Every structure is written in C-alpha cells, then in structure tokens.
C-alpha cells in the first residue's frame, strides 16, 4: 500500500454523473445524480470489490470506466494521465468488460469464434488468420473445448457462455477487467468454476479487476480492496481483510450483517436497517444514509459527513470525527 501514489493504474477523481429523468409524460425532467463525487484509485493487480444495493450507481461507474458513458464532471486518469473523449477508444484496448447476464450479452446469431474475435475486428487488430489463432489460445485459456468454436451461444450452458464472455474480454490483452456481477446469474457449481478461473487468470496474466457484486461472500473471497457505495457515493473504502474484519461505516456493517453463512445453528440476522430506499432524485439531507441508520445523531440530518482518511482507506461518517484532509 505504500507505493499507492505511483502504482495506481486507474483513478477516478471526483466523478459525478447526472441523468435527466422524467417521472411522467408531461412532467419536467429532473436531475438524477447517479454518481455524486466518486473518487477511487485502483492499483495494479488489485481486485477492487464494489458493493452496494441496487441502483446505487455501480454500473454507472463501470460504464464511465469503460468509456461507454461520459462523466458529467470529474476526471478519469490512466497511469496518472487524464483520459479525454478522444482517448476513450484507445482505453478500450486496456480495459474490457464482463457483464452479468451470459444469456443476453452474447449475440445469438454469431458463432462463438466470431463473438470472441469481435474486439479484434472492432479495433482493427491483425488479419483473419491471426485472429483465429488468438481465438484458439483464448478457448484454451478459459477452458472451453475447441469444438464449441463453430457453435452458437444457444448451444452452450450458462457457465460456458460466461467463459465465452471472459475469452472475448481477454482477447485484447487488457490490463484491467471490469466485472459487473459476472456470476450472479449462475448456479453455485458454475459460479465456483468462474471464480476459480478469474483468480487463475489474474495470477497468470497479472490482471487488475474491478469486481462488482451483490454477493459479499464472493467479494470477500476474491477482492484485495473493497469500496462500499451508497446512493452514488463511496462511503467506505479499505483493504478487504480490514473491511471484513472491522467494518466501520454503519451501512457497511449492515451489509456484512446480512451475509447468510450456511450455518444451520443461526437464524436470519437483524440488519437494524430501515427499509426505505431513498429516492435518488431527492436524496436525504446531511448524510444520505441517515433515514436508515441506527446510529444517526443530530448532525447527520443536517451536515454531510466528514471524509475521514485512515491508514488503509477512508470512511465518510460523523461517528469517526472530523475530516483529516
């Protein structure tokens, strides 16, 4: 962690993303702040787990990193250099995605080899023969039998399709892979194969991952660092071992409390969390989490929490005193 300043391969600096949404046919558009000032540093070979509930902005963040969406304000830096709209296309060679749904993310009318080779075609890399060679290598790497290459997605199981998606992502030899819920549509027996594969590939190829998941047991298994998002903001970020051993933000605590380990001696835990998910169009004042926080105090309703930087990461919460930066 001491080389943090130099080794960061990807950095988000104060990113905001605002969508204009209409809530009725004749209503005026209102701003929806999907991301409200997100800063995140990803170091080489780290696996950064990004967790938080549905709608909090995880996929929006992923799309910005992939250059699929432009931030409203803020900067994306790669190896310390700012990336503008023109560099975004180049960026795609270094950052590749793996999405959640292995069923809809593959074009059903294209053969497996065409699907895997597509990024090479899009980025004009090599000729047909060299592309097909690269496909052969990829099939082997992700553990798919060579015979599937002429087949179509509909002929593959869910796990095999996710392997195709991984092969497609890795054929560009990216340094960074953005995994948005890569195993949540899969059965546990298939999920474990894909997690093993992602772990092996990271070792073999020195990859860096941003790993978005609802499954905290999976994140704990794979991640080296964890960022916890709530309503468009990262409320806690820390090395994975530290965060799971001692969650600091009350929302992180509730998330960890809700993990159901397969222990028949225990019952379903009480998360001590209010149920009302706030409206991102008019987020709560002060700390955005205060209406659901069991530990909220008076200041939480009125004053945004301080950004408290600690040894390995940060937490944004009034419980941890005043800002240190």
């Amino acid at each position, binding site marked *: 962690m001491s080389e943090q300043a130099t080794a960061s391969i990807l950095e988000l600096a104060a990113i905001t993303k605002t969508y204009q949404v209409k809530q009725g046919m004749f209503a005026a558009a209102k701003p929806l702040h999907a991301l409200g000032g997100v800063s995140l540093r990803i170091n080489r070979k780290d696996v950064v787990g990004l967790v938080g*509930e*549905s709608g909090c902005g995880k996929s929006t963040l992923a799309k910005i990193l992939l250059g699929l969406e432009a931030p409203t304000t803020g900067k994306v830096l790669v190896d310390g250099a700012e990336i503008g709209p023109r560099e975004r296309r180049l960026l795609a060679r270094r950052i590749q995605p793996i999405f959640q749904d292995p069923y809809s993310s593959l074009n059903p009318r294209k053969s497996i080899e065409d699907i895997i080779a597509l990024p090479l075609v899009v980025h004009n890399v090599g000729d047909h023969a060299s592309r097909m060679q690269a496909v052969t290598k990829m099939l082997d790497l992700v553990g798919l039998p060579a015979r599937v290459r002429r087949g179509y997605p509909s002929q593959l*199981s*869910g796990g095999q399709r996710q392997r195709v998606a991984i092969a497609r992502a890795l054929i560009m030899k990216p340094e960074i892979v953005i995994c948005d819920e890569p195993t949540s549509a899969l*059965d*546990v*027996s298939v*999920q*474990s*194969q894909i*997690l*093993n594969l992602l*772990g092996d590939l990271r070792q073999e190829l020195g990859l860096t991952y941003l790993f978005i998941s*609802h*499954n*905290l*047991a*999976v994140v*704990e*298994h*794979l*991640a080296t660092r964890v960022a916890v998002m709530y309503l468009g903001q990262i409320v806690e970020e820390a090395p*994975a*071992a530290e965060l*799971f051993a001692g969650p600091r933000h009350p929302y992180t605590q*509730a*998330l960890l*409390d*809700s*993990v*159901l*380990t*397969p*222990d*028949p*001696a*225990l*019952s*379903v*835990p*009480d*998360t001590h*969390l209010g*149920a*009302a*998910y706030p409206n991102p169009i008019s987020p709560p004042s002060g700390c955005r989490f205060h209406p659901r926080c069991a530990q909220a105090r008076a200041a939480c309703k009125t004053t945004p929490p301080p950004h408290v930087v600690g040894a390995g990461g940060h937490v944004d919460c009034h419980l941890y005193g005043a800002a240190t930066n």
Partner: protein
Amino acid sequence: MSDPILSVHDLTIDIPMGQGTMHAVRGIGFDLKRGETLCIVGESGSGKSLTSLAIMGLLPKNLKRAASRLEFARIDLQHQKPRQMRDLRGNRMAMIFQEPMTSLNPAYTIGDQLEEAYLLHNKTGRAEARARAVALLGKVGITAAESRLSQYPHQLSGGLRQRVMIAMALMCAPELIIADEPTTALDVTIQAQILRLLADLQREMNMAMILVTHDLGVVARIADKVAVMYAGEVVEQGTAQEIFRHPRHPYTRGLLRCIPVPGKTKPGEHLGSIPGIVPSLIGRMEGCAFRTRCDVAEAACASAVPERHTETGHAWRCIHENEGHENEGRVPA
C-alpha cells in the same frame, strides 16, 4: 406427533416435447407438518418450481402430473375440481413468486388487490377487508400503510412490492405457504429483512412453509427440513443440521464445497466445483442421474440406485453409505 398438513409421495411431472417426453420431476416425496419449514434447494432446471406449481395446481395444461399421494390437510389434491382448487388457493394455501409483478396487477391499487384477495374467500364487507389489509401491511413492515392502499404497484420499490406480495398471500391466513425464490432478485439487506419477516410470520401463524431457493445460506438459516433436488429427483433430504453437518449425497457435498464461506474458505484459494452439466431428462432414465459428474461413481451407478436412510429420517439415494463426512469443516461448527 400431528398428521402432516402436506403429503407428497412419488410425484412425477412429464412434459411432452417434440423429441419425446421430458421427465422433469421423477418420483419425489416429502411430508410437511404445521409450523415446519421445508427448503427445496437445487440448480436451475432441477424441478423446484414445477414441484411448487404441481402442489398448488398451477401447472400449465400440457404438463402431466401423477402421484401416489398428494394431500393437503387430508384433502386429495388429485381429485379436486378446478373451482375447488381455486377455493383452496389464496385461502388455505398461498404462493409467493420470485417476481412480484407476476401476481400484482399493475392496473389496480395495492388496496384493491389486497381486499379482493380477502373478499374472494370471505363473506364480509369491504371495511373489514380494508382493516385487515392495513394490519397486514403494517405487519410486513410497511410504514404509513393506510396511504399505501391507494398506490399502484409500479410506485413501489422491488423490496416493497415483495412485502405487498407477502401481505397478499397472508390475507386469508393460509395454512401452507409456498415461496419460490422470494428474495433472489433483491438486495442482500432487503433479502435478510424479508426472510426474517417470513420466518417470524410463519412461526406466529403456525403455517407450514415451503421455500424454494438455490442459496445455501438461506437454506441453512431458515429450514427445519431440506430437500436437495438434482435433475428432477430429491437426491437427499433431512433436517438442516443433518444436511449441513453430515451431508451424505455426493451432490450435496459438492454443492457445499462450491460456495465461499467467510471465515472458512481462505480468500483466493480454489473453490470446489462440480464439472460437467446436468443430463437431458428427455427419454427413459436409468441409474443415478448424477453419475456423469460424480467423483465417486462406479459401474453400479448405471443401474438402479438404492435409497438409504437413518433412523432419524435422513435419506439419500446413492450406492455408497458415505459416512463420516464432516463437510471438511466448511460449515461453522
């Protein structure tokens, strides 16, 4: 001990297909008492949802159901007329689906739908139905219940809709509730809240509950009894203690090795896996359906496989006894 409220013996479900008949559910059985929770767990396609629908009498028409016994509260469900089944459903037995919008009508308010569910089976006035709706919405943790009655389903979040669904299922105080993946689409925090709620209400109302899920964490925390399904069969069943602490069937053992368990699996280490895929269920089946993926399979597995059980009722289908397994310490002791 009391009679079971639900008895399912030798249930089969066949699906006619172009290439032959698909034997989607193949001779499964279990008994359930009042106040008990049975979890059915298994991979997608193993027949969990079909089993639930078969009990509720909601299978699509082209599917063929047969059983040596299918009884709910001593009523033979195989000889009920469609309108008798309708009377039972939503009244004495109710179902909660994964996607709340399959049961909520987008065109009607929450209040109308809750009240309708009650008035259909009870000869009382709207006022009483409304009072019950408000009381139940409060019970499932919805604040300002009165004002929710005039809202439409799309105005609620996924978690709230799932709560409304639960309230609707409970309107007539059913004796049996079947919940098919009720929390799969929800966030982990909401999932914990909804499961806790279901478990509390089930205890309070002494209902029997079947919870269908593929999440072993959910099973461990909520089940009294567990049935593990693979390729249309229950390959193992027993108490939650037995299934998690002394799993006997190689498939159950395999599943338990696949999941990362905080504090037990070392971060980054290889997880267990079950290579291969589920066999096709079309045509005649013989022997153990798991043998193409089983790491302790033998030649004998290709012919009939014995059903084994202990005195406590822990049962599994395998040529092996598979004793002495402590699940490699994966389950917290």
